[in-house]
């Protein structure tokens, strides 16, 4: 054993500088803005804040945002689970490609995604002509908002599940089949309990992103106040109307959702770590 007091790179000044830098940047870029949102929102007093929130258009924007999230989350929950199941439990040509394709929404700018949907389903789009002759309006209405939100958030659940399901393997499910259980019973009694926490984690992330999505939604929504305006879009509209306090009041709602998400995320991560700790080791006596 050597008697060096410090490991390599462990000199006190290096440690202090790095920690100090990280703390300073976190405060400047993360903490101060969040604090500012709430101080600005409340700077004219609680009654103004409440008035801003209770504004007819703000309430509508909140409603629409929740409605979109309510549709998006279950859709991606089903999609993500089915996708993770198929790529981890079956071997088929194009499987690797599919795993890569899931990440497209991460790689593509949401504005581009919105434009693509507009190009496809808009009045002059490839499918839009057919849709409008059948009197179906997707773009500049809530279905369009849901569609792009689903697109933007679709990797979250699958990305959480795939590594976990790969690591757990399919032995437990095979054991279930050998014991005569039906596919549904196996999913409900074996698979679902095993992936529960990862699934909830994916849902939290999906929800956070669905509520906060701006770019893609702004392209396809048309920004009609009281009709197709979601909360993030509403913040921008208020800001452009020079209603700074109103904008911050709405923004504070989004920030509150974000903080709630973080708390929920931390809790689920803690539960997940706990359930992994108690997971059976494969070896040993």
């Amino acid at each position: 054993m050597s008697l060096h007091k410090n490991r390599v790179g462990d000199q006190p000044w290096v440690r202090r500088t790095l920690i100090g830098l990280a703390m300073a940047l976190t405060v400047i870029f993360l903490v101060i803005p969040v604090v500012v949102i709430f101080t600005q929102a409340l700077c004219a007093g609680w009654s103004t804040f409440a008035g801003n929130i209770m504004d007819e258009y703000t309430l509508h924007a909140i409603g629409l945002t929740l409605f979109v999230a309510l549709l998006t989350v279950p859709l991606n929950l089903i999609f993500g689970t089915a996708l993770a199941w198929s790529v981890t439990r079956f071997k088929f040509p194009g499987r690797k490609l599919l795993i890569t394709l899931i990440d497209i929404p991460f790689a593509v700018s949401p504005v581009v995604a919105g434009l693509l949907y507009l190009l496809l389903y808009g009045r002059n789009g490839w499918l839009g002509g057919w849709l409008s002759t059948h009197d179906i309006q997707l773009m500049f209405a809530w279905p369009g908002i849901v569609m792009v939100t689903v697109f933007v958030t679709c990797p979250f659940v699958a990305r959480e599940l795939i590594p976990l399901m790969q690591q757990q393997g399919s032995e437990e499910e095979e054991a279930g089949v050998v014991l005569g259980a039906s596919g549904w019973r196996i999913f409900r009694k074996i698979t679902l309990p095993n992936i529960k926490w990862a699934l909830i984690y994916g849902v939290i992330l999906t929800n956070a992103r669905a509520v906060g999505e701006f770019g893609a939604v702004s392209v396809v929504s048309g920004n009609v106040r009281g009709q197709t305006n979601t909360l993030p879009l509403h913040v921008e509209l208020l800001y452009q109307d020079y209603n700074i306090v109103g904008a911050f009041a709405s923004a504070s709602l989004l920030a509150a959702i974000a903080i709630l998400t973080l708390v929920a995320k931390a809790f689920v991560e803690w539960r997940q770590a706990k359930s992994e700790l108690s997971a059976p080791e494969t070896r040993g006596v």
Partner: protein
Amino acid sequence: MSITIQNINKNFGKFQALNDVSLDIPEGKLTALLGPSGSGKTTLLRIIAGLESSDAGKILFSGEDVSDLHVRDRNIGFVFQHYALFRHLTVAQNIAFGLESLPRKERPSKQEIAQRVEKLLEMIQLPQLADRYPSQLSGGQKQRVALARALATQPRILLLDEPFGALDAKVRKDLRRWLRALHDEYHFTSIFVTHDQEEALELSDQVVVMSQGKVEQVNSPAQLYARPDSRFVFDFLGHVNVLSGVVKSQKLVQGDAWVSLPGTKGDQEAQLYLRPHEVQLSRDPSTHARLPLRIQSISLIGSEVRLELTPEGWESQELWETGMSHAEFAQQNPTRGELWYAVPNVGHLFEADSHQPRSVDWDFQNAANASSM
């Protein structure tokens, strides 16, 4: 229930896992599928279970073709290598899973299931662990629970994939004995996969030796050990001492070593295989063999003294091994570094052109010694 395997073929991409395998597994017997990794034994087991499909061939249970029958409907018990216990269910819930999965008409009542689970827990001697989760069990306990779970629906066939592979030596021995006793009591037809020759020989009624997707030999453990019919089986089952050389004037010769082989054709390459117990050590060469060896190590632990020897004046790929009783050891007192001679009693000769060995029996001088063994 007997199992018949007819001309099974299986490829994974370009890799041929099973090459035209045919086998009969007798009813009520414990059969071992023995082979090195990659020999296709686990694949064969999974095909019998229905967890894997074969590219060609048939599986029959008691003469009935089950090739197209779904795993779910084959009613077999399967014990996975790493147990595959349901981690979110308790021990009792794990064991009850098969019974609760039965179609409503055949499903026993809740009380009946609880009773059956209780009986199975007693059978595996773990009634106190009913409410534990798998992560709270030791490896040996998990293995027992996996067995109880597999037996809950009273299958006529029990398949076990490397059942003791992940356990330490002591627990493995206990469980082996316990499984044998269980099998003798319930008489299901069992097949287990193993790469451990000792386990296969000790536990089974019949051993199927596999290599590279083919069946090498099927026999009872005693027959298999005494009369391996290929080089592969010989090498795979226990240690073997090999003298590889050229036959000249009815002698197998290599360097300073030779063994007389009456009735052998000359001028061909041949290998003589000798089990450790088929060789004795002497301070002088005998009339029928001269195999000079230097003692490299002596191991005193066990019922026999084991000696490892290096060839002197000739060569062998692996060290030679032989044993002697502790009494003999005390009398002869061999020490490390001494030169001794190996004297074979019986041997197995692989001649150049033959795949199967020919037994050689030298007229053993000390008849009394031989009959006492």
